[in-house]
């Protein structure tokens, strides 16, 4: 197939030192300054091969999937299934049946809430999450708890942003029906011990869902090794398109769960009296999917593999060390989140300067960061801050961008002194 051969032809080793050249966005300026993009945790940039895979679909074989007998539809179907396979490989799922395309991490978590949650969790049952969850792993469970009169329990964290494992262990009970935990905190960068968290939950037969939105672009995720029951992630946090993501689920869990949304593609046969649902993974994929998004995300998975997680981890840890040193040296700056195991995220507050003023000053200096509560309001409350400024780095980040950030922050200090 023409489409497939194009997809696979690109999968060769890529040097991390020069990968930045693959990202067209870095040639642009912002307010007359070179762009320093330090907001990859919000959305990572997209390399040219991903864009090409995305537009190839639209320019050469745009058609619906799993339906037509014509060549374009067959090519589209093959490309989308190849993307599923690339995602399977990236996270080491057992089979493609365990990889369900969703619109993103939020959608994936909602899928688990609406299916596993609504069928298995009832009055007085308990769901355990942590203090550092993103709203996407709080709100669905809060909604479910309100609906079912279930109890939401929250694992405390230390001041430096580490989960209290002793407290967690003591919270597990006969009423616990699910543990939902973020793999890597988007606000603090903390990498949580998800394997140990899963092991402890499984010792009581409690399933575990991992919010992996911030993990897959930074580190090797092996869902079989972690042994989690569910793992959710998003395309646009791993150099792919927006509006696409996956839910990984163990086949034994997924096959027991009722369908999520009803419609085309998720059925084998339909009459007005009866519906026969399709097999995995299609049971959970009602309606025409985000085909180009899936193809783009699959390509992004291949791109990451071509660079290699060892190279990514090594470079990002260096960047993290460099940024931490540089920022710590600024007067009145305090880093929020100092766990020993961190991904390349540095959140901070500054004496007398509100994060939104910092954000504006940095923007005018060409530096893109995120300011605010980062969709983690309960975490902000726990840490006693209203908002932080967050610089988040990725495999394409250069030290010069951190220098540009540091210089812009010095300017903010000057203005507000």
């Amino acid at each position: 197939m023409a489409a497939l051969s194009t997809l696979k032809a690109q999968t060769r080793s890529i040097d991390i030192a020069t990968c930045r050249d693959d990202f067209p966005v870095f040639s642009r300026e912002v307010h007359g300054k070179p762009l320093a993009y330090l907001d990859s945790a919000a959305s990572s940039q997209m390399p040219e091969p991903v864009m090409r895979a995305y537009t190839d679909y639209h320019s050469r074989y745009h058609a619906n999937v799993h339906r037509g007998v014509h060549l374009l539809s067959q090519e589209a179907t093959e490309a989308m299934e190849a993307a599923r396979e690339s995602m399977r490989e990236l996270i080491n799922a057992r089979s493609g049946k365990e990889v369900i395309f969703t619109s993103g991490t939020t959608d994936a978590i909602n899928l688990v809430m609406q299916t596993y949650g609504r069928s298995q969790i009832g009055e007085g049952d308990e769901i355990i999450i942590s203090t550092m969850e993103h709203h996407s792993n709080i709100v669905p469970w809060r909604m479910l708890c309100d609906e079912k009169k279930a109890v939401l329990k929250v694992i405390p964290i230390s001041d430096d942003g580490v989960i209290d494992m002793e407290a967690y262990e003591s919270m597990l009970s006969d009423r616990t029906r699910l543990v939902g935990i973020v793999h890597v905190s988007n606000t603090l960068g903390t990498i949580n011990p998800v394997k140990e968290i899963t092991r402890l939950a499984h010792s009581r037969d409690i399933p575990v869902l991992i919010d992996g939105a911030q993990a897959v672009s930074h580190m090797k995720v092996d869902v079989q090794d972690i042994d989690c029951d569910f793992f959710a992630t998003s395309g646009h946090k791993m150099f792919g398109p927006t509006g696409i993501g996956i839910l990984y689920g163990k086949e034994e869990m997924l096959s027991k769960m009722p369908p999520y949304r009803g419609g085309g593609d998720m059925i084998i046969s339909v009459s007005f009296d009866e519906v026969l649902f399709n097999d995995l993974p299609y049971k959970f994929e009602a309606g025409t999917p985000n085909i180009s998004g899936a193809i783009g995300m699959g390509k992004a998975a291949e791109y990451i593999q071509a660079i290699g997680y060892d190279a990514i981890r090594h470079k990002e840890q260096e960047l993290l060390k460099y940024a931490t040193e540089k920022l710590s040296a600024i007067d009145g700056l305090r880093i929020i989140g100092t766990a020993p195991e961190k991904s390349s995220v540095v959140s901070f507050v500054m004496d007398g300067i509100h994060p939104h003023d910092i954000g504006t000053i940095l923007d005018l200096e060409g530096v893109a960061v995120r300011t605010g509560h980062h969709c983690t309001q309960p975490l902000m409350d726990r840490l006693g801050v209203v908002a932080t400024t967050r610089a988040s780095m990725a495999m394409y980040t250069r030290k010069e961008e951190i220098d540009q950030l540091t210089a812009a922050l010095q300017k903010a200090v000057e203005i507000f002194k």
Partner: protein
Amino acid sequence: MNDKMSQLYQQVLLDHNKTPRNYRELENADQESLGYNPLCGDKYKVFVNIDEQDIVTDVTFIGDGCAISKASASMMTNIAKGKHVDEIDSLYHQFHDMVRGKLDPDTDPNDLGHLKIFAGVRDLPARVKCAVLSWHTLNAAIKGKEKVSTE
């Protein structure tokens, strides 16, 4: 410093941010309202006393947020004190139009005076809400609404 930055973060604004005027709770206020911007957590409470002629005899505020929102609140209380509610309503609309780029304070007729320093916000769409939060809140307090949100 580049032009946009120096235009926005003028000394006047920085001074009002550091030492906000009328920054206190008004005990037994006739009306009060809470303004909240959930996006950035900016939160201000505005208190007003209004006499029988609909003159705002006193206006104060408390709360926290960015420099733009705090300076805006501070300057607003200075300018609103002693004015008729209709005048304040007119200023509220002029200010709103200015930060949204619909009114040019240098060429269009207006009564904005010192408030002109917030004109630079029109180039920063993400910050418009910071500048108008306290004005929305004052407007709500005058009209007797207890809560207002800029989201």
